[in-house]
């Protein structure tokens, strides 16, 4: 049987495909472009911050840039990144199916994504949105820029995200191969499943809130307009009801990835399958109860602040359990320090630190000082880059042989992992200190006493950017020229490694046999 890459050729065979693997590759191209674009915005931001006063660009330009940076990175890159690429590619194989439950919806979701992204880009070209990615009313409803196309773009991207999530849930429920019970599923599947629940439930609320902003901006609906009695704080409630769970849409798949990497390279069963599986579900559900921690100083009632504060502490426990389980998995393993494994360690360290700073900002009185300062910026970049982007890079290296049937250059990989780690810390550790000192975020210019740390941060960002470009470069080269590889170069027990690399169009030559589990490293 031919592999999925060579099964058919020609551009039409890609654009019209319903093969989950090909759709995954198309998503991979799309989100990589989005990441580069968002990264380019970030480089411009950091360049402006090299100087404290005005200069280099207009304030309005800067404000647009951080808005676009946030929106691009969150909605066009990070939310689809791992689920729509690696979830799409691996999940059907991991459950032993030939495809997702609804292949045409899968393809449609890609085009809906493209439409939403195109609308957003069009909005940016037309100078849209200087509102911050959070669209806070009443600024967003009165902004001099054109908010509506970007807001509707976010809505459409949300539709795509729902389609993906719905497809995954149906697949996990209905298409598991015979004898593959819930508790034998690879944990990546659990993570994606939990993510999908959030996508399906929370995304409509986001769609509605940004639509309200668009309606207000374009037509004067005035639901949040104080002049009509509206309360702008209510918009924040709606926004964070989605956007806090959304941060778990971003981190859960990353957790799924590292849960696959660790057992493979430590040749060890996962320390506690149960803990990882159920904590994913726990995060998905309890994550819905914490949204108010973004609003401690927004003028919410003390009761609400108390409830959301304590629930934030509870949700963190699940993440902590995961961290300790991953570490424990290494115990008495047989550890190989390959590129994916280096990314695994970068992830653990950066996520643990970023997560603990999440606890810090969730501590109500401390957040009063830190809210909307660079401390928060550092917190979420630690989790989103240190966590998710790192895991994304780990996943690319880990599954590269499977997806393309080729090897990537290991030396380059190691260099890239180390470079990302160093550049990252150089960029964002100074931002914690800036936040402590009280530098607010979304500041085009800043008092001189923050200058030195800002320069450090910018230099780190340049290093990080350079490493990213380097990584992209050698991976692209390897897609076309890398050495051919076998079905299971890592010696993994994972189900996806039991099919040829790259897999045939129908994934399995013979049905998946899950009697030897995907983490059974105690058997020869």
């Amino acid at each position, binding site marked *: 049987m031919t592999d999925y890459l060579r099964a058919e050729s020609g551009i039409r065979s890609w654009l019209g495909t*319903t*093969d989950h693997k090909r759709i995954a590759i198309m998503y991979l191209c799309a989100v990589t472009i989005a990441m580069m674009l968002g990264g380019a915005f970030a480089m411009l931001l950091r360049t402006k911050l090299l100087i404290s006063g005005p200069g280099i660009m207009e304030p309005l330009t800067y404000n647009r840039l951080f808005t676009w940076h946030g929106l691009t990175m969150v909605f066009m890159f990070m939310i689809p990144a791992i689920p729509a690429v690696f979830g799409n590619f691996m999940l*059907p194989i991991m459950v032993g199916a*030939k495809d997702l439950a609804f292949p045409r919806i899968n393809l449609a979701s890609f085009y809906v994504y493209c439409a939403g992204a195109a609308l957003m880009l069009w909005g940016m070209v037309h100078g849209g949105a200087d509102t911050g990615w959070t669209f806070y009313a009443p600024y967003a409803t009165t902004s001099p820029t054109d908010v509506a196309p970007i807001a509707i773009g976010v809505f459409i991207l949300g539709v795509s995200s729902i389609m993906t999530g719905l497809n995954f849930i149906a697949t996990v429920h209905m298409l598991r191969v015979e004898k593959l019970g819930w508790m034998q599923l690879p944990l990546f599947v659990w993570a994606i499943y939990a993510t999908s629940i959030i996508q399906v439930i929370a995304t*409509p609320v986001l769609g509605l809130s940004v639509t309200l902003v668009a309606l207000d901006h374009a037509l004067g609906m005035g639901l949040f307009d104080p002049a*009509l009695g509206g*309360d702008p704080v*209510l918009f924040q409630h709606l926004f964070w009801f989605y956007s806090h769970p959304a941060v778990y849409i971003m981190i859960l798949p990353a957790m799924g990835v590292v849960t696959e990497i660790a057992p493979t390279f430590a040749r060890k069963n996962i320390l506690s399958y149960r803990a990882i599986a159920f904590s994913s579900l726990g995060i998905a559900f309890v994550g819905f109860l914490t949204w108010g921690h973004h609003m401690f100083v927004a003028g919410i009632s003390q009761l609400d602040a108390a409830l959301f504060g304590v629930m934030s502490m509870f949700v963190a426990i699940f993440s902590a359990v995961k961290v300790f389980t991953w570490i424990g998995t290494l115990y008495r393993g047989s550890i190989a320090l390959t590129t994916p494994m280096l990314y695994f360690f970068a992830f653990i360290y950066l996520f643990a630190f970023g997560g603990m700073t999440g606890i810090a900002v969730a501590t109500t009185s401390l957040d009063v000082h830190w809210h909307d300062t660079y401390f928060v910026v550092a917190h979420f970049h630690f989790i989103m880059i240190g966590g998710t982007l790192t895991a994304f890079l780990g996943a690319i290296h880990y599954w590269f042989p499977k997806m393309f049937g080729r090897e990537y250059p290991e030396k380059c990989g190691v260099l890239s992992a180390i470079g990302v780690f160093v550049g990252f810390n150089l960029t964002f550790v100074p931002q914690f200190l800036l936040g402590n000192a009280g530098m607010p975020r979304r500041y085009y210019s800043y008092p001189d006493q923050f200058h030195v740390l800002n320069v450090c941060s910018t230099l780190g960002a340049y290093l990080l950017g350079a490493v990213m470009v380097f990584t992209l470069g050698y991976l692209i080269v390897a897609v076309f020229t890398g050495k051919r590889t076998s079905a299971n170069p890592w010696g993994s027990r994972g189900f996806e490694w039991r099919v040829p690399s790259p897999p045939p169009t129908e994934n399995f030559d013979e049905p998946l046999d899950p009697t030897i589990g995907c983490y059974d490293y105690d058997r020869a």
Partner: protein
Amino acid sequence: MTAHSQYESLARRQATARLGMWLFLGSESLLFAGLLALFAAYRVMYPTAFHDAAEHANVALGTINTYILLTSSLTVALALRATEHGRRRATVAWLLVSIAFGVAFDVLKLVEYAQHLHDGFAPGHYYTATSLPPSSVLYFTLYYLLTGLHALHVTAGVIVLGWLALRARRGDFTPTSHIALECGTLYWHLVDLVWIFLWPILYLLR
């Protein structure tokens, strides 16, 4: 669909489509959550303004529409049943009746809108009425958004039912294979479900 199929049997495939539909309905109902939350919050903040505004709701039309939708739910259920018994003509007939109800609902809704607009109870900054406490405008804005979003669903439902009627006439549905029809009726029932809550919230509560 590609030549290969990932399903072991037709029944499995139908069960999957059914689950997918339910997931979609669950997601769809969350679309209303934000507006409901806003309604609840503003009602708590401005009880009198909302009370006074609700007095102006057209209870008669709202109630007629309630009966219409409840009955249309029955008729689509009967359409599905007719297919299960292999009665093609009855299926088409029941679907057409349901479509008629849906259209009637939309028409009455438009009448209601026209009347409110005439009285100056327009949404947002277009609101010109002066007889009510000022924050009543929030009630009307939410009224338009909630019922408008719902009416969009009704309209989408009518289109879906129309498409199903065409397919039914063509003989696409057999007693054992009619998952599209089933999903379509589920969607229609969701439209009914949403209205079951909107009606007391917008029309009856004082």
